[in-house]
């Protein structure tokens, strides 16, 4: 069977599976719709959380970023996994004990204020919408590259699938499809990695292979890679740092805190039966994530080595453009890879020097997407990668859309504007807002705003500087008052937006960046993407200062905080 039909078959089979699950797991109540009935097994929830969390960026782009950044790419590995330690210890068990439906709902109750809840809804929506645009683009791109349909057709197909299971099943449908999607994506990621590791080193486990010798030689893979990239004038792979040590620390910490503050991830821990389950479930989630995250650096290094030895088989001996392999031709068509024969000798000279480098474009995404072809793996593996990329994008999109829909129907409509509506009406409203959220996300996928490229970093910055500190202080301090919390959240978001905009342009419009995207102007050399941690520090400081001069929270709130800290303590206050 040719690659095209095989890809249709594999992707079609996974979609049929997702639809089948949606039909079985329909939501019958708001409890089903928002938190899947609250009875999800902790291991199953761990798997769903892993799929919820690992997006198109983790699956398609991360290994490529590491491949071209080397050691500097570690910020993503440590940042995006270390955040789960924070989430597991500081937030998940307590928010599960709180036992209601949404993140803004907790902020509203803890800070006894509808305005706090409103501000939280605002932060949640900004951060989830920016994040969902990237997933929608990922769905369109995966379809167009592998199934050779238009970007638009691909996006539409993806939207229909999400619409079907998210509107029908809510959190319940999403949970069980995410479990299936995790299985698809982890197979799709690890199988090519295992093949490549075997080819290069003879070890099946990529984590071992990366630290081993190349087959038939007595040279370690990483030493070889260091030598090859330095010969071409790039910085050494294993020591190429991303800015200063302070920048590495700030970036890693921002990603960690941002991860812990993302509402669509937090809300997954509302779905398990007990506080104890929330704690272990976070461990399972991290274990399932770690399988991909420890494989990614191996894929990165091995694919970079493969790419380099394809274009330059022996030192000083370059590949002739006429003899380039089929995958090179395929990916040239997509524009992700391009060659310009600057010295007109018909050979591909790849180097770090922009004047003489002839491989003028090598997109990060090539590393995962073209990896199976570069390593000459069978067609079914390539088809699997297509299904895996789609599973990663769909599962994250659905989780984000649910967070947005519940913020609208539960927090804004039921919580703030129309408290009198019945449960049936609220369930209907949540389905309608889910449908609207899918349409808005689809619209933004069709017309990606100019600032889309910078937005995922912004989503992390906002989650780190607004939502995370508000939740953490709500649990760990009895003293933070509503004025403190609201002022803290606004100050945190304000300073983060200000810093990002002054370097990247207001709403990312080029030309409005009044300080320019220049390293010299960075605050202590911290890049805009890494600024979330500074926003978080400001949020904490403002909240503590304002709380010190305003009235402390009422007794009922203190009782509520005391009760969420202890697994079996009932909260008998009148507030809840």
């Amino acid at each position, binding site marked *: 069977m040719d690659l095209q039909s095989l890809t249709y078959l594999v992707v079609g089979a996974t979609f049929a599976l997702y639809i089948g699950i949606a039909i079985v797991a329909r939501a019958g109540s708001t409890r089903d719709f928002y938190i899947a009935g609250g009875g999800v097994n902790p291991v199953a929830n761990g798997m769903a959380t892993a799929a919820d969390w690992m997006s198109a960026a983790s699956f398609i782009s991360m290994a490529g970023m590491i491949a071209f950044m080397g050691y500097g790419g570690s910020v993503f590995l440590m940042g995006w996994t270390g955040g789960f330690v924070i989430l597991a210890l500081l937030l998940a068990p307590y928010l599960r004990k709180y036992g209601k439906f949404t993140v803004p709902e907790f902020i509203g109750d803890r800070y006894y204020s509808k305005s706090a809840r409103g501000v939280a809804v605002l932060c949640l929506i900004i951060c989830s919408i920016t994040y969902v645009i990237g997933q929608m683009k990922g769905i369109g791109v995966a379809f167009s590259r592998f199934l050779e349909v238009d970007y638009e057709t691909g996006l539409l197909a993806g939207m229909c699938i999400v619409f079907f299971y998210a509107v029908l099943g809510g959190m319940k449908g999403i949970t069980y499809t995410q479990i299936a999607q995790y299985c698809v994506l982890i197979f799709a990621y690890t199988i090519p990695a295992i093949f490549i590791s075997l080819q290069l080193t003879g070890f099946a486990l990529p984590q071992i292979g990366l630290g081993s010798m190349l087959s038939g030689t007595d040279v370690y893979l990483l030493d070889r890679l260091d030598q090859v990239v330095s010969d071409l004038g790039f910085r050494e792979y294993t020591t190429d740092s991303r800015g200063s040590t302070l920048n590495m620390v700030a970036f890693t910490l921002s990603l960690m805190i941002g991860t812990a503050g993302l509402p669509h991830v937090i809300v997954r821990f509302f779905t398990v039966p007990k506080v104890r389950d929330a704690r272990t479930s976070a461990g399972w989630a991290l274990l399932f994530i*770690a399988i991909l995250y420890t494989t990614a*650096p191996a894929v990165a290094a091995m694919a970079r080595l493969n790419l380099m030895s394809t274009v330059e088989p022996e030192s000083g001996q370059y590949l002739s453009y006429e003899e380039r392999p089929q995958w090179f031709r395929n990916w040239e068509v997509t524009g992700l890879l391009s060659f310009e024969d600057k010295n007109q000798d018909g050979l591909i000279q790849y180097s770090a020097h922009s004047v003489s480098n002839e491989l003028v474009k090598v997109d990060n995404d090539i590393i995962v997407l073209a990896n199976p072809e570069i390593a000459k793996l069978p067609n079914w593996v390539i088809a699997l990668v297509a299904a895996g990329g789609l599973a990663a994008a769909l599962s994250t999109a659905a989780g984000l859309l649910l967070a947005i829909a519940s913020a609208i129907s539960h927090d804004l409509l039921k919580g703030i504007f129309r408290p009198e509506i019945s449960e049936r009406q609220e369930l209907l409203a949540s389905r309608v807002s889910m449908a609207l959220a899918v349409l808005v996300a689809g619209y933004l996928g069709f017309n990606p705003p100019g600032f889309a490229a910078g937005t995922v970093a912004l989503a992390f910055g906002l989650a780190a500087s607004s939502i995370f500190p508000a939740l953490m202080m709500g649990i760990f301090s009895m003293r933070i008052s509503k004025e403190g919390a609201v002022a803290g959240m606004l100050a945190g978001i304000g300073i983060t937006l200000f810093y990002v905009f002054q370097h990247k342009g207001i709403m990312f419009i080029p030309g409005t960046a009044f300080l320019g995207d220049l390293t010299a102007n960075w605050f202590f050399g911290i890049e805009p993407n890494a600024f979330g941690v500074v926003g978080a520090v400001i949020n904490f400081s403002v909240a503590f200062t304002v709380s010190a001069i305003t009235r402390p929270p009422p007794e009922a709130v203190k009782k509520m905080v005391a009760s969420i800290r202890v697994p079996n303590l009932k909260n008998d206050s009148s507030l809840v």
Partner: protein
Amino acid sequence: MRDSNDDRMAKYWSKNVSLMLRVFLIWFVVSFGCGIVFVDWLNQFRFGGYPMGFWFAQQGSVFVFVGLVFYYAHKMSSIDREFGVDEEAD
């Protein structure tokens, strides 16, 4: 009577917090310490073909994180039982 219960809960909470601090200390040392601040120094040692600092940054810290979350969950379950606040004791 109520006071002594409050005392017990305060003790429960401080045990939890000190467990957290220990876990975060390790979390900090493996990632920010071994993976970033002391990475160059650690790279003089090898772990198979991995320079040691590089290994911590791209593999080791992630493994340790997984262990830490399970360790915390396990420890907290026994602290819950010790203070009789686990959900089964309801």
